[in-house]
């Protein structure tokens, strides 16, 4: 993106995060929470929303500060901004969703080192206006939420036979414990990325260009 002289506008920033530049399936960043908290759908959605909220707040603040940032201190500023908002979100979760807060455990504070947020601060918010930064946060956060939810959906359905804690497959259907375990997280994400790759390959093949 940095080689392109013209930075994308608000509309493009809002839409590109969902599919074309999806954080998880395409850019493959922010993997730790993606794999760790997606064994059930509610945890995945909570994590996605918490991350989006932090991303939105950090993008706004970074964008407002963008004329005062010193190049050698900017990473520190991003990190401290993010850490502040993560603390706020963590306290909010502990107050209003204590059960979920316990289940997510250390992965809430680990939003601080989610490379997605810092990379958006660097790639977009530190260079563009607040409006574009908000659009970017919504787009990228939405894409992150989408990816987390799809992983949580597959893993909860296969691993526990339920959706949002409600059993929704016939009793005689087997459940695969492995999808609730760490190995299942790698397996599910690998399969989803492979399916997406296959779809892209077939689409570019049908258009007739060979370079992927």
């Amino acid at each position, binding site marked *: 993106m940095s080689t392109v002289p013209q930075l994308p506008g608000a509309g493009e920033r809002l839409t590109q995060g969902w599919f074309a530049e999806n954080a998880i399936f395409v850019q493959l960043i922010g*993997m*730790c929470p993606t794999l*760790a908290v997606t064994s059930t759908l509610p945890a995945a959605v909570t994590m996605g929303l918490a991350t989006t909220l932090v991303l939105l707040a950090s993008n706004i603040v970074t964008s407002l500060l963008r004329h005062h940032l010193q190049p050698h201190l900017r990473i520190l500023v991003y990190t401290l901004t993010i850490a502040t908002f993560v603390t706020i979100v963590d306290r909010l979760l502990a107050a209003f969703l204590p059960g979920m807060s316990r289940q997510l455990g*250390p992965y809430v504070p680990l939003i601080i*080192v989610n490379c997605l947020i810092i990379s958006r601060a660097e790639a977009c918010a530190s260079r563009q206006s607040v409006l574009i930064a908000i659009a970017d946060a919504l787009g990228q956060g939405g894409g992150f939420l989408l990816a987390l939810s799809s992983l949580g959906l597959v893993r909860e359905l296969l691993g526990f036979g339920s959706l949002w804690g409600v059993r929704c497959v016939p009793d005689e259907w087997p459940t695969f414990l492995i999808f609730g375990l760490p190995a299942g997280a790698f*397996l599910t994400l*690998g399969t989803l990325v492979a399916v997406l*790759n296959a779809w892209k390959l077939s689409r570019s093949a049908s258009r007739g260009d060979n370079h992927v």
Partner: protein
Amino acid sequence: MFDLLFIGLSAAFINNFVLTYFLGICPFLGVSRKIDGALGMGAAVTFVMTVAGGATYLLHQYVLIPLGLEILQYIAFIFVIAGTVQFVELYVRRFYEPLHAAFGVYLPMITTNCAVLGACLLIWSRGYTTLAEALVFSFCGGLGFLTAIVIMAGLREEMVFADIPQPLRGVPVSLFIAAILAMAFTGFAGIGAR
């Protein structure tokens, strides 16, 4: 003594940072193409993790808790980690030139390595109370990361010769390998409870 041994074993294998807690996945997938690079990254992480684990333990125990400022835990910890990484880089560059040549390039990346922050936070959420426990836990957690990333790199070096279907190339097949590794490490589960 036996307790310490057990904490170490648990951090390195039973609850492997990468394969059980999913900490440090980005370098695990990004810097595992060659064994040399993986070894350098693993060593750098182990080093920083041990120093940061000890430093954050002392900070939390003797500054934040007495002052009643536990709410600043995250901000203080990330600040300490960033500082540690900077300090370690300067120190190593000044006094251990060969070491800097070996893993210097990996040091700046470690600030945003979730394994380091994860280790510092897990020391508290798992209720370790002494400095020795904190140091053993963070050092062995780093060793666990080193083990996992080196195994991964060894497998990926061999994979160059494999004929992999087009859509699976790159990340998907690496994730499948990680899944098989995670299954293998599940075998350690159940050795003790802590």
